[in-house]
């Protein structure tokens, strides 16, 4: 949102345009897509399917890394705690699924 806001400001727009948001999101997705390893991507897909983020054992930190880097996020509601990939990154999930 900050990225989109500053772009709108720079372009002298009083409101944030859709293209400002799209361009900021695209940059964020590109960065995550590049940064995450194949193991991270596989785990992100698993989190998306199961809505749970657990490391396999004490030496496995992949789910933790996904949560820390905000690739995956934790929610709490009337159904208890559950996890999913950050909704902003869901288009990447679709892309990774197609490569599986």
């Amino acid at each position: 949102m900050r990225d989109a806001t500053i772009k709108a400001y720079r372009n002298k727009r009083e409101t944030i345009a859709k293209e400002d948001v799209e361009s900021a999101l695209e940059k964020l997705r590109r960065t995550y897509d590049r940064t995450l390893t194949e193991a991270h991507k596989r785990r992100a897909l698993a989190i998306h399917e199961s809505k749970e983020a657990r490391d396999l054992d004490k030496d496995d930190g992949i789910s933790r890394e996904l949560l820390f880097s905000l690739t995956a996020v934790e929610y709490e509601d009337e159904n208890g705690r559950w996890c999913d990939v950050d909704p902003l990154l869901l288009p990447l999930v679709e892309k990774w699924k197609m490569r599986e």
Partner: protein
Amino acid sequence: MEDARVEEAKAEAARIEEPILEEERTEDLEEIDTIIAELEVSRGRGNLILCVVNAPAYRDGIIRALSRRFRSKIIPVQEGEDVIQSLKSGDFDGVEVLVWTMPEKLTEDLADALNNFRELFYDAGVPSLVFSSQSFLDDVIRRAPDFWRYRGNYHELKERDGGLAFEAIKALSTSLRYQNKEDLLRRKRINEHLLEKVKDEREAAKILDELGQISYLLGDYDRASNYLKQELKISEEIDYKKGVASSLHQLGMLAQATGDLIEARRLYGESLKIKQDLGDKSGVASSLHQLGMLAQDEGDLGEARRLYDESLKIKQDPGDKSGVASSLHQLGMLAQDEGDLGEARRLYGESLKIKQDLGDKSGVAITLAQSALLEEMEGKLERSLDLIREAEKIFLELGSPTALQARQDRERLEQKVLNKKMHE
């Protein structure tokens, strides 16, 4: 008839390729402009802006350009302690931006410092701009996620051709004079045509030299480099020393424009030696001028002044008015860098008068644009805006890549003037 068709095809090719080059340059310029806008709105407050640039020379060019707009404190980081000590010292009096340059690799110690002391970046009361390579940022996302989450914006620069366009406008030591972009393109076509027809190798070297200069002025650095390397090869083969010196000099300018300052110095040095052996005083002055610009880029202002003075002295002897105007402009920039704004104004004024008398439109635009930055530093925003508008108009007429920079400056100044009026 066939020649006419060839000319037409070449002209069409030139029309097609130019917007592509411009678009590539614009991407980075727009990103840099966004950084500037963000730094403007963050004045006097903490902010954490990340910026990815892979080549250190390119990064340094951007830092130099930003430092001319914001009083910056540059903090090279090697280990975590550098970050902690600098932030805890709170020694930011008069500083508008903290510029951090990260090392190649994110060590565990540095990741811990960024994670654990991330709040200090905001407590500093001054925006921080953190430069790192792509691989460093990738590591940050994985290994310093708290710092990553705490960031403001982040920017990625692609550093394509002409990426150093955001440097302060300099008076380069080129001999080509032209009226507008059409004039430049016309000369390009004529030279390309002549190159196909010419039999004499020395003449071919001269044509390649001018084609190199034209391509450089149009911002097409790859093509300029090809022409100049051809010129160098031919000149060496026929032992045409003037051609060797000229091509080395211009290749040095290309290296400088793309941020390879070490290679630029080597090439200028080689060229200078040949010119000295030939007794080519004007050429020597030109080399000294460029070496002065290199020293200025590297922050060695004393050495820059010595070289400009030496160059100016040589140019004054044979009455090389254009060269004198160029030197006066650079000495003005030096005075501006040193904070002597009155002296800078005097030198720009002298330089401008000579260029106007000579009808040197490109030189006039360069000095007007630099004067605009000077007026801005003194808070005379309306005057600054008038000057940059005038400069932009000329750059556009000339088809100069510097028009992009002038446009960015003009837009920024328009915003500042508007903000000022709203607060009045």
